[in-house]
């Protein structure tokens, strides 16, 4: 009981994962009982072990997908954050950007994929572009709102202390918007991974999206699940990294969810 009280959140998380896996195993072996549709997590684990440590065939896929994801994600930060700030500061930029932003944000990305392939070819360029399209808008929109919703009292404080424009940006607006930007990065994470999967369905020869697609076409259910699982693990890893960054970047917040 003492142990549970101290580590209740970690224990709850572990129990949640464990019961999910048990339920999955039960579903696969007792209810469905057909390996052409669903395999037990143990079979996925075995297949994953084999692909990682026996044949090693999983590595190139992981590397290809991670590369595309990181390029697209980082490009989104480099473009999205400053553009969001610019929109917050300049009504003209806001007016020009707004219709394009709304259109591009709400159009399903999968509809863009063939177009981008046509324009950028089947190399990394088109895939990074698809990831970028997924990630950039949540980052941009959150950066924009982070700047816009800064406490009015802080702006008055800055005026009262006669801070210059640069000081206002660096000392008030930027730190105030950090939690918003981090929230945008979280949203972008899931959308970015979706982008990787979509991108690799079209004309790829490596990558987890390609692996899943190919396994689906050939009814290779264990490999299919290995691919999906690795996508999931990448998401979890990304979230954890962002959480660490959040704790480091905002030590002044009383609690960090996660």
């Amino acid at each position, binding site marked *: 009981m003492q142990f549970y009280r101290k580590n209740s959140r970690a224990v709850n998380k572990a129990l949640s994962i464990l019961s999910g896996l048990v339920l999955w195993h039960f579903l696969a072996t007792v209810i469905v009982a057909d390996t052409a549709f669903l395999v037990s997590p143990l079979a996925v684990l075995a297949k994953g072990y084999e692909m990682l440590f026996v044949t090693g065939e999983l590595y190139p896929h992981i590397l290809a997908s991670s590369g595309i994801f990181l390029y697209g994600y980082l490009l989104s930060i480099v473009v999205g954050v400053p553009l969001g700030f610019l929109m917050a500061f300049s009504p003209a930029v806001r007016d020009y950007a707004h219709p394009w932003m709304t259109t591009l944000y709400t159009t399903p990305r999968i509809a863009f994929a063939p177009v981008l392939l046509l324009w950028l070819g089947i190399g990394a360029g088109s895939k990074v572009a698809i990831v970028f399209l997924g990630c950039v808008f949540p980052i941009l929109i959150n950066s924009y709102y982070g700047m816009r919703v800064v406490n009015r009292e802080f702006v008055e404080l800055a005026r009262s202390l006669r801070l210059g424009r640069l000081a206002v940006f660096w000392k008030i607006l930027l730190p105030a918007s950090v939690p918003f930007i981090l929230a945008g990065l979280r949203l972008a994470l899931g959308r970015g991974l979706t982008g990787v999967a979509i991108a690799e369905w079209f004309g790829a020869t490596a990558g987890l999206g390609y692996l899943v697609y190919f396994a689906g076409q050939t009814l290779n259910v264990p490999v299919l699940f290995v691919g999906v699982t690795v996508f999931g693990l990448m998401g979890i890893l990304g979230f954890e990294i962002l959480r660490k960054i959040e704790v480091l970047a905002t030590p*002044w917040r009383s609690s960090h969810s996660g």
Partner: protein
Amino acid sequence: MAAAILELRNLSREVKGRSGEPFVIFRDIDLTVRDGEFLSIVGPSGCGKTTMLRVINGLVPPSDGQIFVDGKEQKGADGELVMGFVFQGAALLPWRTSLSNVLLGLEGRGKSAAESRELARKYLDLVGLAGFEQHYPHELSGGMQQRVNLARALAIEPKILLMDEPFAALDAQTRSFMQLELLRIWSQTRKTVIFVTHMISEAILLSDRVVVFSHRPGRIKADFPVPLARPRDMDVKSDRRFIDLENTVWKLIEEEVKAAGGFAKL
């Protein structure tokens, strides 16, 4: 008698109302504050006293009139830093520690980092927060946050301290302690203070002079010297002159409220 440090001439502020008609917040304020004077402004809710403080600090522009500090006209928020503002909500930056919040007004003003830190520490000590330099605002009580707020305004060593209902959000007990603390701090700094409050006893306890505002549009309705010797403590509240002045001011405010249509209209 000390020289005038702040002069308001014919100061007015009006904004556009909902249907475009002018809406006067306060009008034709003429006020002279002497160097080292502690002056309070009281008045019914919504009489424009807080807005006047913000106009004096250049946070919002006046629609008419002039503000002089030491005979020099003040123009908006681009002027030099001669006034410290103590906000009603503490307005502390949550990502900065107490010390760092106090440093905000000192950074980039030609002082060395060591000099600025020393100054910030000195004022945190003065407001009774020695040992809390590295605490973040969320780790401090409401009263302590207001102390940091005060230290930040004092640290820039302004000619005038503007205080906008700084104790309004505190519980009654903390508020009384903070009043006594402010008496102590003021006796050690002798700053010129303009203190806005709606609590008459607070105004009398702290001030050399109490100015009563009328209901909107705010005008100066009365101006009383406080005939109580310093140093003061809570005992002056039972002094006959304290009670008389409190009653006089209360009647004036009651009159204003009735003229404006009663308490329900506040």
